[in-house]
Protein backbone atom coordinates (compact mmCIF):
# COMPACT_ATOMS: atom_id res chain seq x y z
CA UNK A 1 0.00 0.00 0.00
CA UNK A 2 1.45 3.36 -1.02
CA UNK A 3 2.33 5.55 1.93
CA UNK A 4 0.80 8.98 2.12
CA UNK A 5 3.19 11.84 1.33
CA UNK A 6 2.58 13.93 4.41
CA UNK A 7 5.75 16.05 4.56
CA UNK A 8 7.74 18.40 2.35
CA UNK A 9 11.54 18.54 2.46
CA UNK A 10 12.67 21.90 3.88
CA UNK A 11 15.54 22.00 1.39
CA UNK A 12 14.52 20.47 -1.94
CA UNK A 13 10.75 20.75 -1.59
CA UNK A 14 10.18 17.08 -2.47
CA UNK A 15 7.18 15.41 -0.84
CA UNK A 16 7.85 12.37 1.31
CA UNK A 17 6.32 10.22 4.02
CA UNK A 18 7.22 10.67 7.68
CA UNK A 19 5.90 8.82 10.71
CA UNK A 20 6.92 10.21 14.08
CA UNK A 21 5.74 7.12 15.91
CA UNK A 22 8.01 4.73 14.03
CA UNK A 23 10.87 3.41 16.13
CA UNK A 24 13.36 3.81 13.28
CA UNK A 25 12.40 7.46 12.99
CA UNK A 26 12.90 8.11 16.69
CA UNK A 27 16.19 6.29 17.08
CA UNK A 28 17.99 6.68 13.76
CA UNK A 29 16.38 9.19 11.43
CA UNK A 30 15.26 12.18 13.41
CA UNK A 31 16.38 14.37 10.49
CA UNK A 32 13.30 13.17 8.65
CA UNK A 33 11.46 15.71 10.78
CA UNK A 34 12.60 18.36 8.29
CA UNK A 35 14.28 16.71 5.28
CA UNK A 36 13.71 13.65 3.15
CA UNK A 37 17.34 12.56 2.95
CA UNK A 38 20.42 12.76 5.14
CA UNK A 39 22.14 14.75 2.38
CA UNK A 40 19.41 17.40 2.46
CA UNK A 41 19.75 17.54 6.22
CA UNK A 42 23.46 18.20 5.82
CA UNK A 43 22.56 21.13 3.57
CA UNK A 44 19.91 22.23 6.10
CA UNK A 45 22.43 22.37 8.94
CA UNK A 46 24.92 24.23 6.75
CA UNK A 47 22.38 26.89 5.71
CA UNK A 48 21.15 27.07 9.31
CA UNK A 49 24.65 27.49 10.69
CA UNK A 50 25.53 30.11 8.06
CA UNK A 51 22.34 32.00 8.85
CA UNK A 52 22.97 32.19 12.61
CA UNK A 53 26.64 32.97 12.17
CA UNK A 54 28.08 29.76 13.59
CA UNK A 55 29.49 28.59 10.23
CA UNK A 56 31.58 31.11 8.26
CA UNK A 57 30.83 31.51 4.56
CA UNK A 58 33.97 29.76 3.32
CA UNK A 59 33.42 26.76 5.51
CA UNK A 60 29.78 26.61 4.47
CA UNK A 61 30.83 26.74 0.82
CA UNK A 62 33.28 23.87 1.35
CA UNK A 63 30.57 21.79 2.99
CA UNK A 64 28.08 22.45 0.18
CA UNK A 65 30.69 21.65 -2.45
CA UNK A 66 31.05 18.22 -0.85
CA UNK A 67 27.30 17.58 -0.86
CA UNK A 68 25.19 16.00 -3.57
CA UNK A 69 23.01 19.02 -4.18
CA UNK A 70 19.40 18.24 -5.14
CA UNK A 71 18.03 19.31 -8.50
CA UNK A 72 15.47 21.58 -6.90
CA UNK A 73 15.52 23.88 -3.94
CA UNK A 74 12.85 25.74 -2.03
CA UNK A 75 13.14 29.34 -3.32
CA UNK A 76 14.38 30.88 -0.08
CA UNK A 77 16.93 28.08 0.36
CA UNK A 78 18.21 28.51 -3.19
CA UNK A 79 18.84 32.18 -2.44
CA UNK A 80 21.01 31.32 0.55
CA UNK A 81 22.78 28.43 -1.21
CA UNK A 82 23.66 30.70 -4.14
CA UNK A 83 24.93 33.32 -1.75
CA UNK A 84 27.14 30.77 -0.02
CA UNK A 85 28.47 29.22 -3.23
CA UNK A 86 29.27 32.56 -4.84
CA UNK A 87 32.70 33.59 -3.57
CA UNK A 88 32.14 37.17 -4.75
CA UNK A 89 29.17 37.58 -2.47
CA UNK A 90 26.62 37.98 -5.31
CA UNK A 91 23.48 35.83 -5.34
Amino acid at each position, binding site marked *: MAKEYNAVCSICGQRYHVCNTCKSMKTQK*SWRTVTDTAECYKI*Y*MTVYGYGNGTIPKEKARNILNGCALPKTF*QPHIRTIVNEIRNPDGNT
Partner: protein
Amino acid sequence: MTKFNPNEVVFEKIRYIEEFDPTTRQLLSRLTNVKEPTLNFTSEGTPVTDAQGAEIVTFYNAAQGTLSYTNAIHSFDLLAEQFSSEKVVATEDKKIVAPVSEVLEIMDNKVVLKYVPVGTAGAEIKYVQLVNDSNEFGETLEVSAAAAEGKFTIDAAAKTLTFQEGTTGRVIVDYEAEMAEAISLAKTTDSMPPIRTLHVHCYFRNKCDNNIKYIGVITFPRAQIDISSVDVSLTPDGGHAVTYKLQKPYCDESGKLCSVFVYKD
Protein backbone atom coordinates in the same frame (compact mmCIF):
# COMPACT_ATOMS: atom_id res chain seq x y z
CA MET B 1 -5.82 -7.25 86.08
CA THR B 2 -8.75 -7.57 83.66
CA LYS B 3 -7.79 -8.69 80.22
CA PHE B 4 -7.92 -6.26 77.33
CA ASN B 5 -10.62 -7.78 75.20
CA PRO B 6 -12.61 -5.07 73.37
CA ASN B 7 -15.75 -6.08 71.57
CA GLU B 8 -17.89 -3.15 70.55
CA VAL B 9 -15.84 -0.13 69.62
CA VAL B 10 -16.41 3.02 67.64
CA PHE B 11 -14.41 3.18 64.43
CA GLU B 12 -12.92 6.66 64.17
CA LYS B 13 -10.86 6.80 61.00
CA ILE B 14 -8.07 5.31 58.97
CA ARG B 15 -4.83 7.06 59.84
CA TYR B 16 -2.77 5.85 56.92
CA ILE B 17 -2.14 2.85 54.72
CA GLU B 18 1.38 1.50 54.29
CA GLU B 19 2.62 -0.65 51.44
CA PHE B 20 5.55 -3.04 51.88
CA ASP B 21 7.47 -5.33 49.60
CA PRO B 22 6.18 -8.72 50.77
CA THR B 23 9.59 -10.40 50.63
CA THR B 24 11.89 -7.70 52.00
CA ARG B 25 9.37 -5.81 54.15
CA GLN B 26 10.72 -2.53 52.77
CA LEU B 27 8.25 0.32 53.16
CA LEU B 28 7.38 1.45 49.65
CA SER B 29 4.64 4.01 50.06
CA ARG B 30 2.36 5.61 52.63
CA LEU B 31 -1.05 7.11 51.92
CA THR B 32 -2.34 9.48 54.56
CA ASN B 33 -5.60 10.85 53.16
CA VAL B 34 -7.73 7.73 52.98
CA LYS B 35 -11.49 8.07 52.72
CA GLU B 36 -14.42 5.81 51.85
CA PRO B 37 -12.66 2.55 52.71
CA THR B 38 -14.47 -0.73 52.26
CA LEU B 39 -13.39 -4.26 53.00
CA ASN B 40 -15.34 -7.05 51.37
CA PHE B 41 -15.00 -10.83 51.56
CA THR B 42 -16.81 -13.41 49.44
CA SER B 43 -16.87 -17.18 49.34
CA GLU B 44 -18.52 -19.76 47.18
CA GLY B 45 -20.98 -21.85 49.11
CA THR B 46 -21.76 -25.47 48.30
CA PRO B 47 -24.95 -26.48 50.13
CA VAL B 48 -25.49 -30.07 51.16
CA THR B 49 -29.15 -31.11 51.25
CA ASP B 50 -31.05 -34.16 52.42
CA ALA B 51 -33.33 -36.31 50.33
CA GLN B 52 -36.13 -33.76 50.68
CA GLY B 53 -33.90 -30.87 49.62
CA ALA B 54 -33.57 -29.33 53.06
CA GLU B 55 -30.19 -27.78 53.55
CA ILE B 56 -28.07 -29.58 56.08
CA VAL B 57 -24.88 -27.62 55.90
CA THR B 58 -23.08 -25.31 53.53
CA PHE B 59 -19.40 -25.69 52.80
CA TYR B 60 -17.57 -22.53 51.84
CA ASN B 61 -14.47 -22.29 49.79
CA ALA B 62 -12.78 -20.01 47.24
CA ALA B 63 -12.64 -17.23 49.81
CA GLN B 64 -11.73 -13.90 48.27
CA GLY B 65 -11.43 -10.39 49.52
CA THR B 66 -11.18 -6.88 48.19
CA LEU B 67 -10.02 -3.69 49.83
CA SER B 68 -11.17 -0.46 48.24
CA TYR B 69 -10.60 3.11 49.25
CA THR B 70 -10.20 6.58 47.85
CA ASN B 71 -7.17 8.65 48.67
CA ALA B 72 -8.51 12.19 49.04
CA ILE B 73 -5.63 13.59 47.00
CA HIS B 74 -3.87 12.09 44.01
CA SER B 75 -0.85 9.89 44.62
CA PHE B 76 1.75 9.35 41.91
CA ASP B 77 3.14 6.33 43.74
CA LEU B 78 -0.33 4.78 43.72
CA LEU B 79 -0.82 5.71 40.08
CA ALA B 80 2.47 4.04 39.17
CA GLU B 81 1.22 0.82 40.78
CA GLN B 82 -2.07 1.11 38.95
CA PHE B 83 -0.08 1.52 35.76
CA SER B 84 1.98 -1.54 36.71
CA SER B 85 5.12 0.53 36.20
CA GLU B 86 7.68 2.51 38.13
CA LYS B 87 7.79 6.23 38.72
CA VAL B 88 10.82 7.70 36.97
CA VAL B 89 12.48 10.53 38.87
CA ALA B 90 14.69 12.92 36.93
CA THR B 91 18.18 13.89 38.02
CA GLU B 92 20.77 16.28 36.64
CA ASP B 93 22.47 13.32 34.98
CA LYS B 94 19.31 11.75 33.70
CA LYS B 95 16.74 14.35 32.76
CA ILE B 96 13.23 13.65 31.64
CA VAL B 97 12.05 14.95 28.27
CA ALA B 98 8.61 16.42 28.86
CA PRO B 99 6.12 18.18 26.58
CA VAL B 100 5.69 21.94 26.94
CA SER B 101 3.03 24.23 25.48
CA GLU B 102 3.23 28.02 25.51
CA VAL B 103 1.24 30.87 24.00
CA LEU B 104 3.61 33.79 23.45
CA GLU B 105 3.33 37.34 22.17
CA ILE B 106 5.59 38.03 19.19
CA MET B 107 7.83 40.98 19.92
CA ASP B 108 10.22 42.34 17.28
CA ASN B 109 9.54 39.25 15.15
CA LYS B 110 10.76 36.96 17.95
CA VAL B 111 9.52 34.92 20.88
CA VAL B 112 11.59 33.60 23.74
CA LEU B 113 10.66 30.24 25.18
CA LYS B 114 10.66 29.32 28.84
CA TYR B 115 12.72 26.15 28.37
CA VAL B 116 15.40 24.98 25.94
CA PRO B 117 13.69 22.88 23.28
CA VAL B 118 15.16 19.51 22.34
CA GLY B 119 14.81 17.44 19.23
CA THR B 120 16.31 17.35 15.77
CA ALA B 121 19.20 19.83 15.71
CA GLY B 122 18.20 23.02 13.91
CA ALA B 123 14.57 21.93 13.86
CA GLU B 124 13.73 21.27 17.49
CA ILE B 125 10.28 22.71 16.87
CA LYS B 126 8.70 21.73 13.57
CA TYR B 127 5.47 23.75 13.58
CA VAL B 128 3.94 26.68 15.42
CA GLN B 129 0.42 28.09 15.11
CA LEU B 130 -0.34 31.76 14.97
CA VAL B 131 -3.44 32.87 16.85
CA ASN B 132 -5.68 34.97 14.61
CA ASP B 133 -7.81 37.99 15.52
CA SER B 134 -10.72 35.71 16.40
CA ASN B 135 -8.58 33.98 19.01
CA GLU B 136 -8.59 30.80 16.93
CA PHE B 137 -5.99 28.81 15.05
CA GLY B 138 -4.42 30.99 12.40
CA GLU B 139 -1.61 30.24 9.98
CA THR B 140 0.69 27.31 10.64
CA LEU B 141 4.36 28.19 10.31
CA GLU B 142 7.04 25.63 9.58
CA VAL B 143 10.65 25.61 10.74
CA SER B 144 13.27 26.38 8.14
CA ALA B 145 17.01 26.83 7.89
CA ALA B 146 16.42 30.36 6.62
CA ALA B 147 13.68 32.94 7.04
CA ALA B 148 10.87 33.07 4.47
CA GLU B 149 7.15 33.59 4.26
CA GLY B 150 5.32 30.95 6.22
CA LYS B 151 8.56 29.87 7.92
CA PHE B 152 10.42 30.55 11.13
CA THR B 153 13.95 29.85 12.33
CA ILE B 154 14.96 28.50 15.70
CA ASP B 155 17.95 29.06 17.96
CA ALA B 156 17.44 26.38 20.58
CA ALA B 157 20.32 27.40 22.85
CA ALA B 158 18.93 30.95 23.01
CA LYS B 159 15.35 29.60 23.33
CA THR B 160 14.39 31.97 20.51
CA LEU B 161 12.13 31.62 17.51
CA THR B 162 12.52 34.25 14.75
CA PHE B 163 9.70 35.01 12.34
CA GLN B 164 9.59 36.89 9.09
CA GLU B 165 9.62 40.67 9.33
CA GLY B 166 6.18 42.02 10.13
CA THR B 167 4.82 38.97 11.92
CA THR B 168 2.78 40.03 14.93
CA GLY B 169 0.27 38.64 17.37
CA ARG B 170 0.42 35.54 19.47
CA VAL B 171 1.78 32.13 18.64
CA ILE B 172 1.15 28.67 20.10
CA VAL B 173 4.42 26.78 20.54
CA ASP B 174 4.49 23.07 21.44
CA TYR B 175 7.84 21.46 22.06
CA GLU B 176 9.79 19.10 24.27
CA ALA B 177 12.32 20.13 26.91
CA GLU B 178 14.66 18.34 29.27
CA MET B 179 13.68 18.67 32.92
CA ALA B 180 16.05 17.92 35.78
CA GLU B 181 13.22 18.26 38.29
CA ALA B 182 10.42 16.09 37.00
CA ILE B 183 8.81 12.69 37.30
CA SER B 184 7.14 10.55 34.72
CA LEU B 185 5.13 7.35 34.68
CA ALA B 186 3.60 5.45 31.84
CA LYS B 187 0.96 2.80 31.49
CA THR B 188 1.87 -0.04 29.19
CA THR B 189 -0.29 -2.82 27.90
CA ASP B 190 1.72 -5.82 28.94
CA SER B 191 2.76 -5.41 32.57
CA MET B 192 1.39 -7.01 35.73
CA PRO B 193 0.58 -5.05 38.89
CA PRO B 194 2.88 -5.82 41.80
CA ILE B 195 1.96 -7.79 44.91
CA ARG B 196 2.23 -5.83 48.15
CA THR B 197 1.79 -6.33 51.88
CA LEU B 198 -0.63 -3.72 53.20
CA HIS B 199 -0.98 -2.38 56.72
CA VAL B 200 -4.09 -0.32 57.34
CA HIS B 201 -3.61 1.75 60.50
CA CYS B 202 -6.75 3.10 62.14
CA TYR B 203 -8.19 4.47 65.37
CA PHE B 204 -10.98 2.98 67.40
CA ARG B 205 -12.63 4.61 70.40
CA ASN B 206 -14.05 3.07 73.52
CA LYS B 207 -17.82 3.12 73.21
CA CYS B 208 -18.31 4.36 76.78
CA ASP B 209 -15.39 6.72 77.17
CA ASN B 210 -14.61 8.21 73.77
CA ASN B 211 -11.35 9.62 75.14
CA ILE B 212 -9.95 6.12 75.32
CA LYS B 213 -8.31 5.43 71.99
CA TYR B 214 -7.29 2.10 70.56
CA ILE B 215 -4.93 1.57 67.71
CA GLY B 216 -6.02 -0.86 65.06
CA VAL B 217 -3.89 -2.39 62.35
CA ILE B 218 -5.41 -4.54 59.65
CA THR B 219 -2.76 -6.41 57.71
CA PHE B 220 -3.06 -8.02 54.32
CA PRO B 221 -0.08 -10.25 53.57
CA ARG B 222 -0.80 -10.38 49.83
CA ALA B 223 -2.68 -7.59 48.07
CA GLN B 224 -2.60 -6.96 44.34
CA ILE B 225 -4.01 -3.86 42.73
CA ASP B 226 -7.03 -4.69 40.59
CA ILE B 227 -6.37 -3.09 37.22
CA SER B 228 -9.37 -4.60 35.46
CA SER B 229 -10.96 -1.17 35.80
CA VAL B 230 -8.99 1.87 36.97
CA ASP B 231 -10.79 5.20 37.26
CA VAL B 232 -8.50 8.14 37.79
CA SER B 233 -10.47 11.24 38.63
CA LEU B 234 -9.19 14.36 36.89
CA THR B 235 -11.02 16.83 39.11
CA PRO B 236 -9.66 18.62 42.19
CA ASP B 237 -12.16 16.98 44.52
CA GLY B 238 -12.42 13.60 42.83
CA GLY B 239 -9.75 11.80 44.83
CA HIS B 240 -7.81 8.74 43.76
CA ALA B 241 -9.72 5.46 43.97
CA VAL B 242 -8.00 2.09 44.20
CA THR B 243 -9.05 -1.52 44.69
CA TYR B 244 -6.88 -4.40 45.86
CA LYS B 245 -7.57 -8.08 45.46
CA LEU B 246 -6.56 -9.96 48.57
CA GLN B 247 -4.70 -13.18 48.09
CA LYS B 248 -3.53 -15.98 50.27
CA PRO B 249 0.24 -16.42 50.63
CA TYR B 250 1.08 -19.73 49.01
CA CYS B 251 3.43 -20.80 51.81
CA ASP B 252 1.04 -19.84 54.59
CA GLU B 253 -0.66 -22.99 55.85
CA SER B 254 -3.27 -20.95 57.73
CA GLY B 255 -4.24 -19.17 54.50
CA LYS B 256 -4.75 -15.71 55.98
CA LEU B 257 -6.27 -13.09 53.74
CA CYS B 258 -6.04 -10.52 56.52
CA SER B 259 -5.34 -10.15 60.22
CA VAL B 260 -6.71 -7.56 62.63
CA PHE B 261 -4.71 -6.23 65.58
CA VAL B 262 -6.08 -3.86 68.22
CA TYR B 263 -4.08 -2.52 71.13
CA LYS B 264 -4.16 0.28 73.60
CA ASP B 265 -2.66 3.58 72.54
